[in-house]
């Protein structure tokens, strides 16, 4: 254990103290998260019609989700989109956040103003953000298209949310705009803890800005990266509110913005205008999503922690 957690005193055992520390959180979690979720996951093994449980289904719901078109098509389609979202956000959102944090850490003039303005979108409700950006991206009177026409790039003006080629990308960009403030803050906090002497002595040794970033800053903010990666991963696969507001529950145009969060919601709760409620399939989907995220996260955690130690 010592090598795994270097800042710990291995000989100390305070079982009662530890139990005391853990109990409140465990009670809350088990009582209001774990137990309800387990009850709900049991739904996956039954057949449902609306709210009525009409018989034991065994693994039928899982079979439908994984192997029976069109359900399975929707599953893999949504999953694929989640992957795209995750990778894109890592690069676009978190990459930008890293550099923004670096610039903020310099303490330039106005940096507090920048910090506040960067974080302002994070505080806003996704409902507002989604609607605002839908207005901006509106093909007829949206600001984006109007600007493109005004600066002579009229051929680039297109129905951003109406085409499968641009719809998901647009949502990703909006999400990045909305949330970039948060990873920026996390990175900023980590960067602020880097002892100034290390950076200064590197500079004296002749290391340029970029070299310092690559060789010193990036490795030293590993804990922040862990947090950001895991939260982005989990957030990408649970993504729901923004696509719901901007696209709709079916993930239009024709499922090109469909993600697991939307698919789950319309399966479990139905939509007003098309899909019917099915808790059986909805739960099965939730079970699969959960297992997937659990395995990958456990693996990520292992890898990232090891990296933190090594660095």
């Amino acid at each position: 254990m010592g090598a795994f957690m270097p800042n710990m005193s291995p000989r100390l055992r305070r079982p009662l103290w530890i139990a005391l520390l853990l109990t409140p959180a465990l009670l809350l979690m088990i009582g209001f998260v774990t137990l309800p979720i387990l009850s709900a996951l049991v739904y996956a093994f039954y057949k449902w019609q609306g709210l009525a449980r009409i018989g034991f289904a065994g693994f039928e719901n899982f079979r439908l989700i994984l192997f029976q078109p069109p359900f399975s098509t929707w599953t893999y389609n949504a999953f694929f989109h989640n992957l795209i979202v995750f990778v894109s956000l890592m690069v676009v959102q978190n990459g930008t956040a890293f550099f923004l944090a670096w610039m903020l850490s310099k303490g330039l003039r106005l940096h507090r103003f920048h910090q506040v303005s960067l974080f302002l979108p994070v505080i806003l409700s996704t409902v507002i953000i989604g609607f605002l950006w839908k207005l901006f991206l509106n093909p007829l009177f949206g600001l984006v298209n109007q600007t493109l026409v005004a600066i002579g790039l009229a051929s680039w003006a297109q129905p951003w949310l109406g085409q499968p080629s641009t719809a998901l990308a647009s949502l990703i960009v909006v999400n990045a705009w909305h949330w970039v403030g948060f990873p920026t803050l996390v990175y900023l906090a980590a960067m602020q803890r880097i002892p100034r002497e290390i950076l200064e002595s590197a500079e004296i040794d002749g290391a340029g800005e970029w070299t310092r970033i690559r060789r010193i800053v990036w490795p030293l903010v590993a804990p922040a990266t862990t947090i950001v990666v895991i939260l982005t991963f989990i957030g990408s696969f649970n993504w729901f509110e923004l696509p719901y507001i901007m696209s709709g529950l079916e993930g239009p145009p024709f499922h090109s913005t469909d993600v697991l969060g939307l698919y789950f919601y319309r399966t479990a709760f139905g939509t007003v205008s098309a899909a019917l409620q099915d808790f059986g399939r909805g739960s099965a989907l939730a079970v699969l999503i959960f297992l997937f995220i659990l395995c990958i996260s456990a693996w990520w955690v292992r890898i990232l922690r090891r990296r933190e130690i090594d660095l």
Partner: protein
Amino acid sequence: MLKPWQAALYQALLVMTSLVMLYPVAVMVLSAFKTTGEIYASPFALPESFALRNLATIWHETRFLAYLGNSLLVTATSIALMLAAGTLAAYALARYAFRGNEAIYLFFLAGLMVPLKLAVIPLFIELRALGLIDNRLGLVLVYAAIGLPSTVFIMTGFLRTIPAELEEAARIDGAGEGRILFRIMLPLSRPALVIAGIHNAVPIWNDFFFPLVLIQSDHAKTLPQGLTVFMGEYSTDWGVLFAGLTLSALPLTLIYVALSRQFIAGLTSGAVKG
């Protein structure tokens, strides 16, 4: 030290970013003064008039102050509960070696991975058994539990980076576990507490799903839930909704601006001589 051209470049980039961030917010605030038709007809122009008719609608048709109070109460209490319980648990996981440490850590993390909306029916049944339906306390407990995984995750991440020497020195001085936790570890973790707090406060403040399902009486509704009254089946009163949601964003914004001062102070005090 930055070369002047580097500083200028960074400043330019930061200014551009701030503008990109703030412009939509400005549109939002301006739209709060428009009617739905006006928002679609001239979305980016200044409003025809700065009449407060949308605000008047909110005032008359909803119990705005009551909802605001409920939101403040529910959010503050949830955050306090979640940070308290979560930090204690994170401390145990981060600074003590014991069997099951990794398993419990993953158990908390697993809470982040399930779409909790799925459990809404069992949750309702459970809260009903406890007599907590239509009760803000029920909402608080649910939110606190939902926020625990990310809190534990973030706090563990930060607490693990505090060097053991600090702890050792304190122990040599005769400090007990409690003292170490409250006098040394917690103050050092202020930035992490702020981050964990904000990460959860925003979704809790803006959530309307759980209040819609768990709160049925008008006097206990939260603000976003109260504002859903303007979302109709075939038409949504966007002007009024914008006004409401803009107002709704104010408390958190003010708190954040105030906290960011704290945050910066916390940041610099957290730099440990290594």
